[in-house]
């Protein structure tokens, strides 16, 4: 959180991300951006407008509009990174990452190790996630696939302050970092989805970074630990508000980084509360919540006063109809009910 002495403004996540990229590009000539529709004049500035204005400042050399070729985008990022460039690659929707899994899993994540540690792959891949009425192929939250890949780092910021700071860290990191943001949280439109929370945040005007691998305690509490990201984080916070009015104090943790996971922060909290609920919009089976649960079930078993609960999107592809989508994605009521049951 920004200290009180620094100058700040309220920004949306989209604005914060744009600033992060622009500032890093000004700071370091090796940083560049590539992806589909990122720099066309009169175009969108990327699928969600994050890059608007960048091509005007940095030109087509450093803001590269690619063909619709996800393998080329990812492969180019890998190769350029090996030579010391710091590419920021854009995947319009995280769902398209499946088109360049080889480049990410077999190349980006492994080249350093295969070389005996002689080279590095300092690339960033940005990928918007989230179930947002676009159906099965534009609504996935595939973070968990990448959490499983040794050699990759995975971050998932949920507000403007952390989004800007951690994207900067990702760009400066010497490893491949996947940055997952939620489509509903970019601007103000997602406010309702986030339970009315204000999605803008105070963002310092000065340069700052947020470290990869450190969780954030969003709210302190002693009865139960809630771990959540993205929209689920805001729902967890809303649930915590409701529960507080009934005298139940939730500790809400935003892991921020999914790999490497700040397990100490989670262990510490669970040791205090004795109860753990993990909430995510990725589907349940094999989701990153399982990893959190497994680590806690190993390290903190003696502290657990209740079974570990995971609340996740049901194990189905995303349906298009709003009523169906709503039925599969974790909602505030489910979180509230689960916590009450744990304590009851």
């Amino acid at each position, binding site marked *: 959180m920004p200290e009180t002495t620094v100058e700040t403004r309220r920004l949306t996540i989209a604005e914060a991300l744009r600033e992060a990229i622009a500032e890093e590009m000004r700071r370091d000539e090796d940083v560049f951006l590539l992806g589909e529709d990122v720099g*066309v004049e009169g*175009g969108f500035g990327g699928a969600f407008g994050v890059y608007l204005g960048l091509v005007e400042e940095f030109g087509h050399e450093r803001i590269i509009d690619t*063909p*619709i*070729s996800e*393998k080329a985008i990812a492969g180019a990022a890998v190769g350029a990174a090996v030579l010391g460039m710091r590419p920021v690659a854009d995947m319009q929707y995280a*769902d398209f990452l499946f088109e360049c899994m080889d480049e990410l899993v077999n190349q980006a994540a492994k080249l350093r190790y295969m070389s005996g540690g002689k080279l590095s792959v300092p690339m960033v891949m940005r990928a918007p996630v989230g179930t947002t009425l676009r159906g099965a192929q534009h609504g996935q939250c595939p973070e968990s696939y990448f959490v499983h890949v040794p050699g990759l780092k995975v971050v998932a910021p949920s507000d403007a302050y952390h989004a800007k700071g951690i994207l900067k860290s990702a760009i400066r990191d010497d490893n491949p970092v996947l940055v997952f943001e939620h489509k509903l949280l970019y601007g103000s439109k997602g406010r309702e989805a986030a339970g009315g929370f204000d999605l803008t945040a105070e963002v310092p005007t000065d340069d700052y970074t947020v470290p990869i691998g450190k969780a954030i305690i969003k709210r302190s509490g002693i009865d139960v630990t809630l771990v959540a990201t993205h929209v689920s984080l805001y729902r967890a916070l809303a649930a915590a508000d409701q529960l507080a009015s009934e005298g139940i104090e939730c500790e809400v943790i935003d892991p921020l980084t999914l790999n490497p996971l700040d397990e100490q922060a989670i262990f510490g909290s669970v040791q205090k509360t004795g109860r753990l609920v993990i909430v995510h919009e990725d589907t349940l089976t094999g989701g990153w919540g399982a990893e959190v649960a497994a680590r806690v079930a190993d390290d903190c078993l003696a502290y657990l006063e209740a079974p570990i609960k995971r609340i996740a999107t049901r194990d*189905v592809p995303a349906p298009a*109809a709003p009523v*169906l989508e709503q039925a599969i994605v974790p909602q505030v009521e489910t979180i509230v009910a689960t916590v009450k049951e744990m304590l009851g």
Partner: protein
Amino acid sequence: MTPSKRAEADLPGGASAQADTAAWVEALYRGMLLIRRFEERVYRLFLEGEIPGTLHQYHGQEAVAVGVCDVLRPDDWITSTHRPHGHALAKGVSARAAMAELYGKRTGCCAGKGGSMHLGDPSVGMLPAIAIVGGGNTVVTGLGLAMKLRKSDQVAACFFGEGATNEGAFHEGLNFAAVERLPIVLVCENNLYGASTPYHRVSLVPDVAERAKAYGVPARIVDGMDVLAVRAATAEAVASARTGAGPTLIECKTYRFTGHSRSDACDYRTDDEEAEWAARDPLLVHGARLEQEAIEQLEAGVRAELDDAVEFARSSPLPEPHEALDGVYA
């Protein structure tokens, strides 16, 4: 002989045949008109908040869907893209089922689970549309392979944009289809842009048809604004596919009259370019072959069909929340 039965036949000669021809020319026009008016309604309903989700619309490209599907039989198959409304209507998905799907209703062609980007219906030979660019280009080879292995004379047509030709899927799918001589027609709708990106900035070769040579696949470039031109090229390609001669690529030069998706103002295109293509509106091009009176009748019929479709969609039940869990596994 109904228009769709005409299949690969040439335009007929003779007196009663001429009546047939007139009916068929009208049917083609009606097919395009249905798509145009469907898209216009849908856009309005979307802006009014009645239709949820997102939209990629087909205005301007109607001649392609209608020209191709007119040649296909009900037991032929198509694959489609993120921009599937036109393909669905042309292949035989009813306006009711399509509209209800956009409304997220249980009576939709995908029971509300597909939505705009996945319109389709196996019962009329259309896969749920695949909204991954190039996604249909590998899957269609399997349709073709099944037809070949079963020695049926069915054909599978794969619709895709020029943008999709830069995907690995285009390459792998086309090569495999070529090598296996699959009964496939590849229909590239070259509308000059992939989202905001003009094709000439992402391919040094302006004609997609040129790429087919790399696989030994015959290719044709046709005026995608003229339904008869599209139909004629498709008829040839389908005939060749049915007899086991393998795939053909048809590049239809066309243009989308709207933005890429609902929120796109098209500032990356010039007014001149848009005007030039508007003058080649497939409804104008083909409309010139009809009497004005016939057109007005068709308009009325289409209006009624769409009134009915909207009414059907509105009054259809929403799916029950628990239905979200059905249909993942057989």
